[in-house]
């Protein structure tokens, strides 16, 4: 593998002389392995800048509304975890400019500790992606992208919002660029009393207050037409009191801090790209059982140093090869972690061939080694066949893994250093129709997972993780997007429905907190400077016991937004009503979610 990559590296000089695929290469350089052209067999949904900037909100809230993703939340603003295609929260990879950022401690991402609006785009890639992306992309992956433009007009933007439960938020962002140099800055914050009533009871969310602060700085310097050096950073501080449940009062508090820094050298030639990244990721949390006694707390933190090198090369117009190396050193400490350290080295290669104008396929492979566990060799095959100008058939088959986390390996007591990575194989078949403003997509998938890590009580009553479970997931994803314009009126819609079965092989029951049915519909109507949007999401019944004896009711949730722009769209005023019909619902059992709430947002650009 390494020889192969070195060969490619040294042969790029020859490639410079050739002409050709610059548009595709630019996309690959910008989006890395989330680029559509390196994933012919998969569907990638991109959430654009304008949608991200329309509100200052957590990544979880944003994705729940804009895509048909299911999150389980311990109350509004509290810990929020994803289940994609019925997989666990640690089997959905979250990436930041292509670098995996799931917690090194528990393998998951709390989607309420990432701010959504500070990125330029968010890509959602459903399906197994461990070969191209790495650890954890079993059910799918989400990528947070920063983009650095050059030579654009200076742009500044203020955002202010206020709403129910004494919620206040604000953000400033600015971009200053020349032809060769760009500075981008974003500063934001949000706080809320979050004391919504628990509908149908006399209780309220008396310990749900939170506040968070976000800072992003990006720099770009264009050395010449081919090379640029970039720097990205995100700092996020989130302090939350943790909501009570219907049966337990709470005085708990959780403080999170994340710092992510990355330097990148990008090179773009006619037929060749390369990207060299160095990243540092820091996470830490402090948990207080009783926030009035802050001396009694538990803590955890991790630091990761990552080096990543990726190249892409068009050998011929119809043959693209891609490869990369990734080295990661991570260490963790905490109240229950001792000497947690690992170093992982992985390499992947991809061969893409387009034997006919309407047919593209990919073959790819990843292998690696680690100081903490054995990393399996995994492979992937995917392809796309254009049946006609508007119909495309997509298919993919891959093996994937999810590596054990620091908590799994080193938790005191109970950590198990003999754990194997979770392994899965997944296949999917999709049909896509695309014509003018309309896209219709239908995908069926299968995932078989084994060696799933589960914590079990051991002989001495101490819980310990073991590779024990097996699961079979299958389902159907259906989406329709379209629009119609007549005179000054624009009507658009975005409908999605997912059917997901995730079956524990031994028990033959549906995994807990995986809804069989999930649907999302967004209708938007625009007229001149006015926009109205109605969104309704449906979450089917979820089981809350592994025997499927108990469940949470399904619910449909409606949100309404009215937007008016002024001064040639420089000022935008928006009124949002969430939970329009004041529906009592729970995402996690005994943890009610907010009643009807209203927010007013103002954006001013100059």
């Amino acid at each position, binding site marked *: 593998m390494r020889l192969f990559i070195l060969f490619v590296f040294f042969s790029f000089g020859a490639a410079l002389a050739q002409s050709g695929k610059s548009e595709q290469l630019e996309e690959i350089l910008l989006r890395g392995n989330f680029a559509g052209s390196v994933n012919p067999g998969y569907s990638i949904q991109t959430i654009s800048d304008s949608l991200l900037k329309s509100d200052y909100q957590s990544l979880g809230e944003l994705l729940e509304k804009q895509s048909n993703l299911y999150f389980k939340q311990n109350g509004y603003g509290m810990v929020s975890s994803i289940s994609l295609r019925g997989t666990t929260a640690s089997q959905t990879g979250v990436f930041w400019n292509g670098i995996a950022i799931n917690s090194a401690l528990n393998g998951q991402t709390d989607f309420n500790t990432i701010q959504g609006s500070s990125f330029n785009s968010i890509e959602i890639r459903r399906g197994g992606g461990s070969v191209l992306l790495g650890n954890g992309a079993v059910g799918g992956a989400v990528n947070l992208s920063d983009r650095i433009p050059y030579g654009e007009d200076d742009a500044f933007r203020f955002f202010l919002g206020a709403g129910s439960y004494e919620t206040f938020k604000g953000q400033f962002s600015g971009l200053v660029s020349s032809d060769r140099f760009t500075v981008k800055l974003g500063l934001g914050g949000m706080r809320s009393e979050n004391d919504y009533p628990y509908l149908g009871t006399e209780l309220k969310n008396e310990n749900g207050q939170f506040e968070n602060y976000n800072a992003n700085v990006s720099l770009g310097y264009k050395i010449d037409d081919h090379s640029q050096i970039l720097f990205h950073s995100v700092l996020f501080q989130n302090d939350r009191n943790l909501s009570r*449940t*219907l*049966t*337990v*009062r709470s005085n708990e508090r959780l403080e999170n801090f994340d710092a992510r820094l990355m330097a990148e050298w990008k090179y773009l030639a006619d037929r060749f790209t390369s990207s060299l990244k160095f990243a540092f990721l820091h996470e830490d949390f402090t948990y207080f*059982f*009783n926030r009035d*006694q802050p001396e*009694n*707390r538990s803590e955890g933190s991790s630091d990761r140093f990552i080096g990543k090198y990726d190249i892409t090369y068009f050998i011929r117009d119809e043959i693209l090869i891609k490869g990369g190396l990734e080295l990661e050193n991570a260490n963790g400490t905490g109240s229950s972690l001792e000497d947690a350290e690992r170093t992982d080295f992985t390499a992947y290669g991809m061969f893409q061939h387009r034997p006919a104008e309407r047919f593209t396929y990919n073959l790819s492979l990843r292998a690696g080694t680690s100081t903490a566990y054995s990393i399996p060799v995994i492979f992937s095959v995917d392809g796309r066949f254009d049946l006609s100008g508007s119909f495309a058939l997509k298919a993919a088959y891959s093996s994937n893994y999810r590596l054990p986390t620091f908590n799994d390996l080193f938790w*005191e*007591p*109970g950590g198990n250093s003999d754990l194997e990575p979770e392994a899965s194989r997944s296949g999917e078949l999709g049909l896509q129709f695309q014509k003018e403003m309309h896209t219709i997509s239908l995908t069926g998938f299968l995932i078989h997972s084994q060696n799933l890590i*589960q914590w*079990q*009580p051991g*002989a*001495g009553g*101490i819980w310990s993780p073991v590779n024990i479970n097996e699961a079979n997931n299958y389902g159907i994803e259906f989406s329709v997007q379209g629009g119609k314009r007549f005179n000054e009126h624009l009507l658009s819609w975005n409908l999605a429905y997912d059917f997901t079965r995730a079956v524990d092989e031994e028990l033959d029951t549906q995994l*807990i907190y995986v809804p069989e049915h999930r649907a999302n519909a967004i209708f938007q109507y625009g007229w001149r400077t006015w926009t109205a949007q109605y969104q309704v999401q449906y979450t089917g019944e979820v089981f*809350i*016991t*592994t*025997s*499927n*004896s108990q469940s949470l009711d399904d619910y449909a949730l409606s949100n309404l937004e009215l937007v008016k722009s002024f001064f040639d769209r420089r000022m935008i005023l928006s009124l949002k009503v969430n939970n329009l019909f004041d529906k009592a619902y729970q995402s*996690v*059992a*005994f*943890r009610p979610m907010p009643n009807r709430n209203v927010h007013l947002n103002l954006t001013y650009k100059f």
Partner: protein
Amino acid sequence: MKSNKLLTLLVLSMIIFSCTDDEDPVEKTKGDYEFGYFITNEGPFQNGSGTLTFVGDDGNVQQEVYKTVNGENLGNIVNSMFIDGDRAYIVVNNSSRVVVVNRNTMEKIAVIEGNGVEQPRHFVAIDGTGYLSNWGDPFDPTDDFITVIDLATYEVQGTISVGEGPERMLATSTGLFVTLQGGFGQNNEVVVIDPASNQIARNIEVGDVPNSLQDDGLGHVWVLCGGNPSFTGSETSGKLYKILLSDLSTTYQEFGPTDHPGLLNFDSGQLYYLLNGQVFRMNPGVAELPEDGIAGLEGFYYSMTVENGELYGADAGDFASEGIVKVFNVNSGALLNTIEAGIVPGQVVFP
């Protein structure tokens, strides 16, 4: 012919019996839950409620009997239950409350909560006074206490401050014995409270992590100490302490250095405990620990109760769905019954 006559007699007597029954309501049962026993189910941690399972003498098993009768949840982590006459005290740990019910009808009588009830563990009643062990803030080793409750009014009379992690209690002729198991940590004391003054009469040092205790009716209290588990970095062996009620002097027997026994029971003159997945029986008159477990009773029970020659072993399964309680003949090891319980079955409680 003979059996026919018998049958006629039986039918006749039944008619007569039911007639008298109709005429004399005093003969009626006190409630649906008079004859049988209860299983406390902790319920899922944080996101849910514990429940009570009732197992009738007729073999009928009913789940969620408190919720069925009262239409509400007990609360989170139902840790224990104490029956005193017609009343039962259900200790709900994480919700910090004690629910008082009529144990025959399951109807709620009162809820003891607020000041003086914080992370409660176990309840014992002595002559109209209730004693409740509390961890307080489980991360604060200095705020643990025993609550004294007037059972006529269900009002908190006061609290008695004790060391870390008060757990099980036992009323004896010498006073109220409280094991200081250590909560999330480890402790090594038994506190004796004088119920006349509600003052601490004695602190008795025992082995590490005293987890259960029994009165053998022969003038001794037996305290089983699990020892510090290995993850503490200072592992100690389990110990079985014998405390003389007359002078509170102690002797003990020691288990192997990595043996951590628990769940001490006393039935029909014998002590029982669980160690390494085996149930051991010991005659309190014999000075040595038994070498072999009882065949047929093997299991890593989450809780274990020995009553009238039967062993009730709770199996919480994966802790995320309903567990079971297995009933064995404690002598033969034969499995007599498997009872479906609620989520994380804990105690088996007999009236």
